[in-house]
């Protein structure tokens, strides 16, 4: 699922604040500064991650000039995460070989401490031979409207976005949803007090009395104590 093709799954955010007047230059500089720096397997620790921006059209395009991410009032990017993690099956296989060899050398079983040390050794060696796995998640920010669509609803990528976006653009983002939209409408129609005092509808969230045999009148106190 991406901005370019397939079905669309997004979480929307509101961008708090406005871009600076010179946002073309500022954002190009900042995005390039936060573009992904590829991991070097020779120098990496196990499970080391790299997080940064890449082109939405090509995950390997990290040379992000303004024209590459600007599409009619929108900034279109992908959040790329690289991780170097040797396959568990391969670690297990290599470790078994290494343990057998060590036990033959010592002519006896090895301790848990030695086994752990061997595993660390195996993982460290495999890391150097393991290419990074790459995952990208697209992002579309309509700068004029101040709304951002992030093409994932998983916690991990969304947390990374919440961390990287303010660092890059110097603006905070917040999820939109029923509460935010209600507050917007209340502000536009002068109903802030009404929305402020709004409570769940007992019948809708607790059941309509008299239709099902087991349904009773539910009041708001019941609902508020419900969980």
């Amino acid at each position, binding site marked *: 699922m991406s901005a370019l093709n397939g079905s669309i799954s997004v979480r929307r955010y509101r961008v708090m604040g406005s871009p600076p007047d010179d946002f073309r230059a500022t954002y190009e500089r900042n995005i390039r500064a936060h573009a992904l720096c590829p991991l070097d397997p020779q120098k990496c620790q196990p499970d080391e991650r790299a997080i940064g921006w890449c082109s939405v059209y090509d995950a390997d395009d990290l040379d992000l000039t303004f024209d590459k991410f600007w599409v009619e009032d929108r900034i279109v990017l992908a959040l790329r995460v690289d991780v170097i993690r040797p396959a568990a099956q391969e670690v297990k296989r290599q470790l078994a070989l290494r343990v057998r060899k060590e036990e033959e050398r010592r002519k006896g079983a090895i301790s848990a401490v030695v086994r752990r040390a061997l595993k660390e050794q195996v993982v460290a060696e495999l890391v150097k031979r393991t290419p990074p796995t790459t995952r990208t998640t697209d992002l579309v920010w309509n700068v004029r409207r101040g709304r951002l669509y992030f093409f994932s609803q998983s916690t991990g990528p969304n947390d990374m976005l919440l961390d990287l976006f303010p660092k890059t653009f110097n603006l905070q983002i917040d999820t939109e949803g029923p509460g935010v939209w209600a507050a917007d409408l209340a502000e536009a129609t002068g109903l802030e007090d009404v929305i402020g005092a709004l409570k769940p509808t007992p019948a809708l969230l607790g059941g309509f009395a008299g239709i099902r045999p087991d349904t009773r009148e539910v009041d708001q106190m019941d609902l*508020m104590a419900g*969980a």
Partner: protein
Amino acid sequence: MARDDLSDRKFLGREFLTWLIFHADDENGGGDFPAGDEVDAFRVRPGARVVLRAVGEGAGEITARGAAPAQTADVRYAIAGGLTVQEADLLLTRGEQVWQVAVHADLFDIKRAKVPEMEEKGGKGEAEGAELLDRLDRLEELDAMLQAAYQHFLRARLQPAWEKDQLPRIHAWLARSCLPSERDRIRA
């Protein structure tokens, strides 16, 4: 209901999707929404999947699937018993164009959306750029319709008439769907 749900008014998401099932029924408005500042007139119909859930941690969940699950007595019986719509497949129609989407009540996350297809344009490179732009426009149109439908609901929800007018209508609609005596009375 958790404190967070009350303070950020997340419960409105579930109330909205549940109300939408009611509003989409032909006898209650047929899912029609008038044109507004941001959108032309459109229609919302429930799709092939509705997920209902009771309030509270660890509460059970019911998923109804089929050609038109929202029209079944089972779903209405569940609503009458206090289950609300947690997620629903929706079909939004504007003229000849149809958007298909699943909407989750908590944050109105858009899931598995299919937007109307664009017409063929220009060469490959030009077409690729135009295609992205078209998809983003269609996504924003979908979001604008969703927001307009929610505002329509909120305008009713924030009025005193919500308790006196809308809730009795929802109650009567559920009763007609669930109680054989009510159905017989109407037929007679």
